């Protein structure tokens, strides 16, 4: 049984609805299905507006999906009542893209990391303090800086604080929503290494949402490519990069800037008119699905 299983997930937003008119409906996530095995890093890639971030947020019900199922250890979390959902969130956490806006600037680093423990009424004051110190060490932060405010940390350190907070409740599943794209190149590698270490030590399962395909190729075992709200291709990472099947995947891969001045550059341009939006995923080879 996969740890997480998303089936036929749909999220529609209504725009410009007023008292006397219904507005227009935008389908941000359009019948999305995938499963993530325990211990796996599953990549969700796509460009802005593809629905990848909304998919992640629907899975934790940070936005309520319109329809579909999200099964976690076999149970449909979309059917959970409030209290049960709160319980479930202990096991499913998210790390946001922007470490500058996702940490409360008025709280000290210690309070930010401790807050989930307080909310879930875990441990005594002393036990919580000890746990925070342990988490600080786990993510490579200096415990001497516990009482500092977010602005006193660099971007990479702030992302470590966000990670410590996400790990406070010992989750088994983490959604990483563009966790390093706001960081400098030399810092990105540090955080990626930390994420890989933590996954091994804590047996974590990751959903890695990203637009940086070089990074996805490096750390994900399987990848799904989203285009206009739908998954158009899903495959083991090596297969997807070696033999992309969907026209959009090909265009996307050919646009990656290669850090080699002698690399051949042959860009494939996508003609959106040629994409059959009604095609459904079919299995091209073992585990490799494409909507072609």
């Amino acid at each position, binding site marked *: 049984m996969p740890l997480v299983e998303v089936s036929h997930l749909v999220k529609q937003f209504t725009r410009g609805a007023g008292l006397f008119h219904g507005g227009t409906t935008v389908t941000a996530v359009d019948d999305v299905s995938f499963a993530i095995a325990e211990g796996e890093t599953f990549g969700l890639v796509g460009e802005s507006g593809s629905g990848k971030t909304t998919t992640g947020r629907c899975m934790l019900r940070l936005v309520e999906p319109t329809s579909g199922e999200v099964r976690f250890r076999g149970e449909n979390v979309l059917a959970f009542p409030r209290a049960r959902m709160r319980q479930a969130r202990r096991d499913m956490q998210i790390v946001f893209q922007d470490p500058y806006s996702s940490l409360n600037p008025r709280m000290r680093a210690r309070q930010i990391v401790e807050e989930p423990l307080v909310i879930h009424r875990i441990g005594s004051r002393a036990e919580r303090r000890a746990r925070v110190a342990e988490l600080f060490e786990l993510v490579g932060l200096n415990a001497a800086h516990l009482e500092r405010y977010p602005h006193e940390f660099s971007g*990479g350190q702030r992302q470590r604080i966000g990670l410590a907070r996400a790990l406070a409740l010992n989750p088994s599943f983490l959604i990483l929503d563009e966790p390093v794209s706001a960081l*400098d190149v030399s810092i990105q*590698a540090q955080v990626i*290494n930390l994420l890989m270490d933590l996954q091994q030590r804590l047996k974590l399962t990751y959903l890695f949402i990203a637009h940086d395909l070089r990074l996805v190729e*490096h750390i994900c075992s399987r990848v799904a490519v989203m285009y206009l709200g739908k998954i158009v291709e899903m495959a083991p990472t090596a297969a997807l990069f070696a033999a992309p099947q969907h026209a959009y995947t090909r265009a996307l891969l050919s646009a990656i*800037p290669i*850090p080699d*001045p*002698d690399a051949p550059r042959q860009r494939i341009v996508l003609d959106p008119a040629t994409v059959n939006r009604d095609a459904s995923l079919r299995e091209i080879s073992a585990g490799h699905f494409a909507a072609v």
Partner: protein
Amino acid sequence: MPSLNQEDAPLLRVDRLTTVFDTARGPVPAVDAVSFEIRAGETLGLVGESGSGKSVTALSIIRLVQPPGRIASGRVMFKGRDLMTLGEREMQRVRGADISLIFQEPMTALNPVFRIGDQIAETLLVHGRATRRDARAKSIALLRSVRIPNADSRIDDYPHQLSGGLRQRVMIAIALACQPALVIADEPTTALDVTIQAEILDLLREMKSALGLSLLLITHDLGVVAGTADRVAVMYAGRIVETGPVRAIFRHPGHPYTRGLLASMPGGRPGERLRAIDGSVPLLGELPPGCAFTPRCPDRFDRCPTAPPPDYPVGAGQEAKCYLHDPAARRPADGSRQPERDAAR
């Protein structure tokens, strides 16, 4: 404008440019004695992380640094004139007409309350490149040249009606309106999706060769530099630590910082640990003594913190500010080891 381009004179020569920010603790250099050249028709990639001073360098060249920043010293020779000595009126004629700028975020660089056609026409009119009568036709032609579809109706759009990619095309059209000799593009594709980024880079390359202009491309992305630049300058903590032809920089990086940047990119065996650079970029005003990269440098030795190293030749047209390359010095045992030669991929 006098024409004084001898064959070998660079179009732009920045000479020991220093821009400081005045703080309560005194002036802090954001750009520290930066020197480089751009020849006619050449693209120089200026690479650095946030806070390295690359954007302040660009603003200093066209003298648009805002207080508390100020240009403290140095020369910026453009077509034989020192831009630092020009009066403000003369400098205004240079900006937009001879040197133009493309910013990272086209939504904030374009004025949201004016139609894009009016914003292009304004540039043309201010610099006397069009009359009221033909400004519209010339603006449409410019939009066509940057391949904006339906240019004759798009010209009446407001910026918010365009996608990010189209807005950046409009910015490029404005930048090219007066046929400048030099375009400075500051992270022109950073806010864009990867497929749109590739289109904009293609357009910049095309425009550059079609119009014979020179390009100063400022970016943090070595992948962007590899496919676009002829030469590369790497900035760290306000200083240019290495310059060289693009191939040399990627194949035989001379400075440990350049090597670290290249090595830290994903591209090895999947799942392998990345070779990260330790520590973080120092804050302005808290630079370590000597070479500012010393505390993070895997190759540091006793000489590094003594004084900032000068440029040492590394290869043909390649220089690095690193004592490892001092031909006069006896190298310490661990400093003499050959830098890793593997390319990024």
